[in-house]
């Protein structure tokens, strides 16, 4: 039995996580450690368990077996310290809400029930919008933006929660090449402050910007071997060069 303790400057730790959905295994023996300055990309085929893994990290789904420790507690308790940017095409774009209002909803957890947004909340929202370069669009209705712009707004919404970890689900799925590159530049800036986990099946850009690539297809395959893989020798260690072949197969 491995002792459940977090190492110094470790933000998130998954230990031997298993999950199955209607008795179909989705995740097996998943181990992951995220440290302060990590920028991790999780790649893998559709149905490989990427979204499930994110839901487990967010504490929205509990694993059948194994441990998840986020900031020394369960992800359920500390969920509000995770900035989450969902896949954006699940929204109803006609929704009557402005960019400004969307970003402010990120402050909900800080304001408390029944209270109005304070000056400080608005200041934080304005700063986040400036950081993602969308401040001038603050009065636009959310549907009247391009894919890349919507993504930036959702990133701003995640940033105003003052997260200790940023999670992005397919951030470039609906964004053209040029805008994707700009997004990755933005992630790099954000990564100077907090660790980032991003899920993607576009491996083109990923390799240039992230410092760890993990391939997930029911099991995790780490690009660089680390101490966790050592404990579980079944887990294959994949060299960076073969990674591309793996995803395309």
């Amino acid at each position, binding site marked *: 039995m491995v002792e459940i303790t977090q190492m110094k400057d470790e933000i998130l730790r998954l230990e031997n996580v298993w999950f199955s959905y209607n008795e179909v295994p989705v995740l097996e023996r998943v181990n992951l450690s995220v440290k302060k300055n990590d920028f991790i990309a999780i790649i893998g085929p559709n149905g490989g368990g990427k979204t499930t893994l994110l839901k487990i990290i967010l504490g929205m789904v509990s694993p059948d077996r194994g441990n998840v420790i986020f900031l020394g507690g369960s992800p359920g308790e500390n969920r509000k310290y995770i900035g*989450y940017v969902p896949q954006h095409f699940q929204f109803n774009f006609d929704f009557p*809400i402005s960019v400004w209002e969307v970003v402010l*909803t990120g402050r*909900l957890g800080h304001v408390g029930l029944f209270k109005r*947004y304070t000056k400080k909340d608005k200041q934080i929202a304005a700063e986040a919008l400036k950081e993602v370069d969308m401040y001038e669009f603050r009065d636009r209705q959310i549907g009247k933006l391009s894919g890349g712009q919507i993504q930036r707004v959702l990133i701003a*919404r995640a940033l105003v*929660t003052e997260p200790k970890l940023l999670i992005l689900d397919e951030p470039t799925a609906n964004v053209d090449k040029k805008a994707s590159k700009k997004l990755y530049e933005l992630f790099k800036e954000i990564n100077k402050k907090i660790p980032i986990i991003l899920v993607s099946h576009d491996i083109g850009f990923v390799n240039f910007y992230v410092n760890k690539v993990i391939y997930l297809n029911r099991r995790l395959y780490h690009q660089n071997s680390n101490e966790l893989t050592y404990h579980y020798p079944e887990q294959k260690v994949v060299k960076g060069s073969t990674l591309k072949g793996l995803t395309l197969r």
Partner: protein
Amino acid sequence: MLEMLQFEFIRNALLGGLLASIACGIIGTYVVVKRIVFISGGISHCAYGGIGLGYFLGINPIIGAVLFSLSAALGIGIMSNKESQYEDTVIGVMWAIGMALGIIFVNLTPGYAPDLMSYLFGNVLTVPTSDIIIMGILDITIFTVVFLLYKEFLALCFDEEFTSIVGISPEILYLILLCLIALTVVLLIRVVGIILVIALLTIPAAISRMFTASLKKMMIMSVLLGVVFTTLGLWLSIVFKIPSGATIILTSGITYLICICYKHTFRQKFSSEHNLFKRKYRSIKESI
């Protein structure tokens, strides 16, 4: 029109229309943007069971309707949270059970229920002052809750998942919203009746949505439209001596159709930008 105001029942009818419009403008906006029209239908038909119970026990049927629609809201909310894929089945079942209970209660009540039809199809001209007071109290409750939880409801309707991530329970918020719908339904029963509630709940909000992209403006516009529809419908029903509830609904329904045609004609102008984005999204989706 002005000399009609000297009659108390006309004054009550106009006041009833105004009170109903406030609730249906605010809550109808949520019903439309969150796409829970069918749930609202279930809640309103369930209220019929309460009206029957009211007759049976000899209390004000509106009190019975409040009890039944609130329990329907909670029942549908809790069951659909747990078994999300069966949500529409749950609603359909509750819808029918409520109506069936109402029919049996009315049947068990000795004597004849004279104004039962006015609960089904509405008759704002027969609203007594006591009901106006109940409607006022319901309005104040609805307004206060929405005022206090405005930002939470906005987040809930836009992105439920994110609401739970920032640490606010979307399940509880959703139940509160359904309860507000239940109260609104009760308010509207007197004006347009159980069967036509859905129309007055959704049409003003659906029209305002065509012309504004802000939830607050949508609410204000819906309230104003509600006042116009109830007043105009009432006046037409008196002039032509036809049922008031149905006239109010027809007035709003026809306005809605005209607005759709208008919007359709000017569509290019309104949403060319949005369409461009949609097209781009579609092409990207296909290429994946």
